[in-house]
């Protein structure tokens, strides 16, 4: 199992230098910027740095809206939400606003006091944007408490500024992060030097997909990361058939005879 480590910016910069055989073509500042880019892409793709916050439910999101408010603003410390639970530990099931609108058009008017088949505690949540989620059912009015809602989400990526700044990274990803930073630094060089680092980018994307299964489920991402090998081996369109193979043999034979 990989060990948890705290690494300084200076350590990461030194690792970058070790990976290059000649005089380095980047300044320490460029290395810092490249490493920060690697960290923020890693956090975007895998949600590495997480925290838990208390949500303020049923506060008016905007003056132009009418209650009940199903919108919940996320606190500024969160970059995006990943999981919502009640204080008692019941998880809310993730869904989307489009699904709520189509499956249950009245959803945003329903509160925990509606009765009938509407639950008495929030049971679903849907992301509306990076800074806002919606819950169903919502609360019947301000000041009415069902206990708090808690949100597990991804925090802003740590930004390394001074050489002694620390970042917590597992040993298993130190290599991919450093290699990717090298690839970012080589971008300005263009040509062969940059092209030689392209595999580092693909390795980074594949490592992110290994850590976050959601990425692997997304066809577009799989194509980015070069993970769609089955599709390449078994194309659904213009696939070579045995008959085509035989026909091509005849065609090549004809050509030889013509010659």
């Amino acid at each position, binding site marked *: 199992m990989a060990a948890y480590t705290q690494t300084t910016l200076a350590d990461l910069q030194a690792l970058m230098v070790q990976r290059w055989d000649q005089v380095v073509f980047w300044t320490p500042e460029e290395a810092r910027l490249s490493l920060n880019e690697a960290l923020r892409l890693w956090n975007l793709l895998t949600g590495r740095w997480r925290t838990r916050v208390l949500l303020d439910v049923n506060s008016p*999101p905007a003056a132009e*809206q009418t209650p009940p408010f199903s919108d919940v603003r996320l606190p500024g410390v969160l970059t995006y939400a990943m999981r919502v639970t009640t204080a008692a530990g019941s998880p809310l099931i993730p*869904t*989307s606003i489009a699904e709520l609108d189509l499956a249950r058009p009245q959803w*945003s008017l329903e509160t925990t006091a509606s009765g009938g088949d509407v639950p008495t505690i929030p049971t679903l949540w849907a992301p509306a944007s990076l*800074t806002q989620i919606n819950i169903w059912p919502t609360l019947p009015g301000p000041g009415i408490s069902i206990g708090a809602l808690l949100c597990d989400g991804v925090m802003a990526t740590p930004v390394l500024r001074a050489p002694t700044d620390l970042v917590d990274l597992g040993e298993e990803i130190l290599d991919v992060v450093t290699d990717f930073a090298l690839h970012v630094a080589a*971008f300005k060089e*263009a040509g062969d030097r940059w092209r030689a680092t392209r595999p580092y980018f693909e390795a980074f994307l594949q490592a992110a997909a290994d850590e976050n299964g959601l990425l692997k489920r997304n066809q577009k991402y799989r194509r980015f990361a070069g993970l769609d090998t089955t599709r390449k081996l078994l194309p659904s369109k213009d696939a070579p058939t045995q008959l085509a193979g035989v026909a091509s043999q005849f065609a090549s034979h004809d050509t030889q005879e013509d010659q």
Partner: protein
Amino acid sequence: MTDRELLDELQYVLIEPPDQGDTWPSLIWTRDEVLEAVNGAIRTLYRHVHLYVGGVHLPVAAGATAVPLPERWLATVLVVWRDLSTTPPTRTPLGPVDSFEGDLAAPGWEVTPGLPLGYADLDTEQRTLRLVPTPAADGLAELLYVLVPPAVTGALPATDLPVAEEFIDGVKYATLGWLLRKVGRLVDPERAAYCERRAQLTETAAAILLGGWS
């Protein structure tokens, strides 16, 4: 990250002396050109992935043929019609249509009121919403929309970019792609194509995060 830090980073990549974007001595690009590329990249990111949205309930009177959209409207995410003539009010999700589709599906939709089934926001005056067909009763148009991002100026004092740290690469690489496609001394289709791919990667990641887990 602030706007001036991003401009500094772009200067490093484009081998311009880094001064937080104040001067571009190679004369391949002007400062205004770079700022326009940055702002265009932010608007594209907002529009494509609905990064930040606003919600508003617009009151609509029966028979109204046009509803003004909010000042900061950039694009519509979704519209739901809330009919206030029923108790409790009923909600109907609306689909995006244009007037041509409205004419084919419900001829006379502008003068024959009914229950709205679609909305049109692009084929009339700017920032105007039309419901198709025109509503027969008073109601609310529940609008979720993409906000116009604040413009980046690169001026002092530096201001935070209107994009979370993790999505800045979408802006950085869309900007670089645009600059490296410029027909000039540094035109570089290979790196421009790579940059466009990197910008798409950010959009893909955002779409996975915001699309729900369905």
